[in-house]
Each structure stands twice: as structure tokens, then as C-alpha cells.
């Protein structure tokens, strides 16, 4: 693995200058401060960004968040373990299944139980489909922000198929609450394998279709290559995870590093980038969609039979203690740090949201670029404000 270092970043993009601070610098003659959001279509929710501009060049920025804060962690302390499960779906609402998987597994770890093999495989299939769905929303909106109108229609067409599978499985499309602590509530419906197979086989040609629209497109390359560069060093220091860090050349995926669900049974690659720019993050996510589809195709080959729920009581009282469990959500490391005091309600639930931490990289990425690139950089971080603010 070749780390993409700061020096390399400077070679690619000499304007990178990390020394400007929006708060302390005195405004120059051509400098102004403008406000972007919170009501702005390209901020993907309610993100407000204060930009300090020199002409059209961004010299400093500050993200102002919290508009969607609902106090999820506080609510968790006042709900039983099962009651809290639907709340986590509302954080990253374009990847609700992944959130649910992380939470259920964290509580299972806390209790010292494990979901049965059949449940783990079904969980893996649904979570990977969710990863594809989440990346499709990212691709569609990101391309739309940059000015490519077509991909969003294609992406939402395919996403619809995935949502149909979720709907057939558990009746919900977005905030699914698909999993339960200890396993699954619903047995897989009869055509789950057939539906997944049809979708995944079809999907591989669809990804190629998206790529023909964008990958070689001169405008797309012009708008993404060399934009929002972050070196591996910076990305690690800032705590970035997921596609953001992989595009900077760090080959790290929690599905491989600390396998959960049934990921240890399947073959898949971890795509990495070289330059840590918006274009590389685009390529990484495109490849991740292919890999997810590959995992699904392997998983449906052999879904074990057996129970779908571990033998746990209806009243969950995990033994006192604590656990930190992280999964590779579509946006990065999604961690749950749960402390039990032996009662039916958690003493503390801390949710480590990937979007919140990744958003911190925004300032590093945006400096030296043009206002129009701000939109591309927000898009490439793939943030969901429901998760940033919790």
C-alpha cells in the first residue's frame, strides 16, 4: 500500500495551503465572507458553511452543524434496548439497514450472544444491498450537483429495485428496522434469492452504464480531478474512514480488518485510490458497488438453514460492562459504544457517526479551490446530516 503523502499532494496541486484560518486572518481587499446553506440544495440537508473568499477562491471555511440535532444519545438512555433500535435507522436515513446492523451487533456483543448463521447471511445480503442503495443516492446527487443531470434518474431507477426488495422483506423501504437484537424477526421471503440474483446480475451492466456517462467525460474529469485532495496522513489524523480514506490509498475496510456478520465467508476486494481527490473517491465508490454486488451473489448461493433468532429472552438485561462495536457503513466506520448497568436500558449509548467525522475533512479539502468546487467537495464526502447531527 502506497500512502499518498502531503508532499505528493502538493505536487499534484500546488495551491494546497493549509495555513489559512478563517477566524484569525484579517480580511484582505478582495476578501469576503459568504454563507452557504443551511437551505441550499447541494448541502444535502441542512449544513451551513461559512466561506471566506478571495475573489472566487476559498481561503477558509467553517461548517456550522446541529440543525437536525434530536438528542438520539439521550433518548437511548431512556428506552429499552429493543425500543431504541428503530431510532438508529433515522440517523443515516439513506442507509438505515447498516445502522441497524451495527446497533444489533453491538448489543449482541454486549450480551455475549451471536445471531445464528442464517440470520448473519441474510443480514449481510441486505446490508450490501443497502450499501449499493446508499452509494446510488450519493452518485445521483453528486453528479447532479456537479451538473450531470442524467445519472440521478438511472441511479434512482436501480435504487428503487433495492427498496422493493426491502419492502418485500420487511414492509418498509427507507427506515426499515430490518434486524432485531439476536437475529431477524422475519424469515426471508421465498424469492429473496431470486430477486437479489436478478438485481445483482443486472446491476453489473448498470454500473458500466454509469461509468460510460461519467468516467471518461471531460467535464466530469475537469470538475473532479485534483479537487478536494486529502493525503493519507491528513485523512488518518482527521479520523476519516470509509471511501474517503481508501481513496487516499489506505487499504482498510472493517469488513476485512475485523469481520462481522458473515463477511469472513466471502471474497471481495478493497478498492483504493491513489490521489485522494474527488475523482478517486468516485472511482472507489463505483468499484465498491461492484464488490457489494459480488458479495450478494456469493451469499445467495448458500444461505444456511436453521433458526433466524438466537435464544434470548424478551427482556434484555445485558450484564454490566461496555462494548465498542464498529462496522463498515457505506460512509465509513460506524461505531456504537454502549455501556450497560445490568438493567433493561442502556446507561450510555455513544454513536460514532462516520459523516460527522468525515465532514471535518471539509476544511482541509476545500482550501484553495473555487466556490463551484465547494459543491463537489460536499458531495464527495457523502454526508448525511441526519447522522452528522443525530
Amino acid at each position: 500500500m502506497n500512502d499518498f503523502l502531503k508532499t505528493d499532494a502538493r505536487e499534484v496541486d500546488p495551491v494546497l495551503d493549509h495555513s489559512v484560518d478563517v477566524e484569525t486572518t484579517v480580511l484582505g481587499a478582495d476578501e469576503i465572507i459568504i454563507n452557504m446553506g443551511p437551505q441550499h440544495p447541494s448541502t444535502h440537508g441542512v449544513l451551513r458553511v461559512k466561506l471566506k473568499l478571495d475573489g472566487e477562491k476559498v481561503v477558509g471555511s467553517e461548517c456550522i452543524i446541529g440543525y437536525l440535532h434530536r438528542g438520539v444519545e439521550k433518548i437511548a438512555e431512556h428506552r429499552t434496548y429493543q425500543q431504541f433500535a428503530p431510532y438508529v435507522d433515522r440517523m443515516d436515513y439513506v442507509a438505515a439497514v447498516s445502522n441497524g446492523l451495527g446497533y444489533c451487533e453491538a448489543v449482541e456483543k454486549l450480551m455475549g450472544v451471536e445471531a445464528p448463521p442464517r440470520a448473519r447471511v441474510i443480514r449481510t445480503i441486505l446490508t450490501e444491498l443497502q450499501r449499493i442503495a446508499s452509494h446510488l443516492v450519493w452518485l445521483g446527487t453528486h453528479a447532479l450537483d456537479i451538473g450531470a443531470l442524467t445519472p440521478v434518474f438511472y441511479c434512482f431507477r436501480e435504487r428503487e429495485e433495492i427498496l422493493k426488495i426491502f419492502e418485500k422483506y420487511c414492509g418498509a423501504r427507507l427506515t426499515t428496522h430490518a434486524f432485531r437484537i439476536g437475529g431477524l424477526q422475519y424469515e426471508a421471503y421465498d424469492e429473496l434469492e431470486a430477486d437479489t440474483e436478478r438485481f445483482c446480475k443486472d446491476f453489473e451492466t448498470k454500473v458500466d452504464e454509469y461509468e460510460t456517462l461519467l468516467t471518461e467525460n471531460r467535464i466530469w474529469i475537469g470538475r473532479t480531478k485534483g479537487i478536494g485532495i486529502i493525503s493519507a496522513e491528513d485523512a488518518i489524523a482527521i479520523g476519516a474512514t470509509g471511501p474517503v480514506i481508501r481513496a487516499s490509498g489506505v487499504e482498510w475496510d472493517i469488513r476485512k480488518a475485523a469481520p462481522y456478520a458473515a463477511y469472513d465467508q466471502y471474497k471481495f476486494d478493497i478498492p483504493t485510490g491513489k490521489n485522494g481527490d474527488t475523482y478517486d473517491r468516485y472511482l472507489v465508490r463505483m468499484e465498491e458497488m461492484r464488490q457489494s454486488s459480488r458479495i450478494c451473489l456469493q451469499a445467495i448461493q448458500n444461505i444456511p438453514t436453521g433458526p433466524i433468532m438466537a435464544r434470548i429472552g424478551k427482556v434484555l438485561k445485558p450484564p454490566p460492562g461496555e462494548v465498542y462495536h464498529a462496522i463498515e457503513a457505506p460512509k465509513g466506520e460506524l461505531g456504537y459504544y454502549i455501556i450497560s448497568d445490568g438493567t433493561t436500558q442502556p446507561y450510555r449509548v455513544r454513536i460514532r457517526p462516520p459523516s460527522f467525522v468525515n465532514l471535518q475533512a471539509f476544511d482541509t479539502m476545500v482550501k484553495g479551490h473555487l466556490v463551484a468546487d465547494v459543491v463537489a467537495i460536499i458531495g464527495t464526502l457523502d454526508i448525511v446530516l441526519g447522522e452528522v447531527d443525530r
Partner: protein
Amino acid sequence: MRGAASLNPGNMPNEPEDKQPPANAAADKSADKPAADAAKPAAPPAATPAAAAPPKPPAAAGAAPPTPPAAKPAAPVAGAPAAAGPPKPTAPPKEAPPKPEPLDNDLVKRYKQRFGEGIREAWIDRKQSILVVDAAQYEEIARFTRDQEKFNLLADLTAVDWPRREKRFDVVLNLYSFAKNERLRIKVHVGEKEQISSVAGIWSTANWLEREVWDMFGIVFSGHPNLTRILLPDEWQGFPLRKDYDILTQDTAWIRENLGIESGQ
């Protein structure tokens, strides 16, 4: 059940009632029976008014008992939160079970060799390593952790409130090492009036994470570049994730001033 019942009351209007089914049911039944018994023999001739009349007393009797139980548990939580919340959070019974498995591997030996008494405790919980370190040496230990032990990703920094303990807060760092593919948790005890050094200079991700801890718990990180609220409005009073901050508490003054309404509900 004890913990659930004592913690819940403030939550939602219907919950305390759910929690009290035996009391209510008994009250209803006892109210029902005499009322029905009294009604039947007393007013047989006037069929329609009598039929309409009996339901009323039980309804009134039924409505009366639920309110006191609903109000009673709510009062202590709002009035004396430290007394209502903590029965379950008491430190000793909680920390006792995880500790039987003390952690004594090479990692801890290296830390102990370097910092001696700076490493207060070390144990394993659910196969995860936990170190409790001294606040005075915290910054030094953090630097050592990153540079020597190669835990270069600060996955998460958060805090936990134990209001009954002498030093009420735990600041918790969840670390990951790419080189070793290992995770480590470091905890520091911080008192309410104490400050703790910021690690934003060591892992820059701590910048926002520490701001969030300040926002939610009111722990001051000395040396932090910009310690302001991050999720809540800047002028908000109170620290919501503290245990003595009831779930229905709001900064009513702020809400009135900024939203122009009496309640944020």
C-alpha cells in the same frame, strides 16, 4: 424493573401508565365493582339514564388514580435528579464484573514501564482492552499512544457521566492502530470543576469530538483551539447528556427568545 421504572417517568405521557398496570387495573376494578353493584340495584327502572350513569363514576375513578402515579415519579426526577437517576448507576456494582479480567499483556507492561502510576487500571471487557490513565499524564500518554504504540486513528472521543462518583466524568478514547489492527480504549477520570488537556494537537479529529463533549457534558479541554458548542446553539444553557439533565429539560428562555414559542415540544 427498578431502574426502568425510576428512569422512565419523565419520558412520555403514556409510559408511566403502562408501567403501572397492576395499580391501575386494581383501582379500576375496585372502583368498577362497587359502582356497578350500587348502580344496578339502585336504578333499575330508569333504564337509559342508569345505563348512561354508571360508566361515569368508574371513568372518573379510573381517571383519578392514574394521574397521581404519573405525577409522582415525575416529580423526583425533575426535583432531585441525582437521587432518582443514580440508584442504578452506582459505581461499585457496575464496575465490579468487568474487572475480574485484568489486562496484563505486553502492551500494558510497556505502558506501565513508561508511565508507572500514570496507568491506574487495565482490564478486558468483551475482549476489548481498556486502560484507565491519570489525568495529569494524559497528554503525554496520548502522544506515546500515537507515536510509539501506533494507535494513529482516534476513532472516537466521548464521555460518560457517573454523577455519584467523586470524579464524575470519564473521557473515553476509542483508538485503532492500522499497523497492528488492534483497538484500545483509554479512559480518564475528570471531576466536574476540573479541566483536561485537549488532544486536538495529537489527533486533529479530536477537535470536533471534544467540542461535542463540551457541548453535551460541559467538560473543559484546556488548550483546545476553538472550544464552542457544536450541535446546540451557542447560547444554550445546560449540558444535555449529563445524568441530572432530565430528558424533558429545555432552555426555555432560549426557546422563547429565538423561536418565539413557549415550549420546544
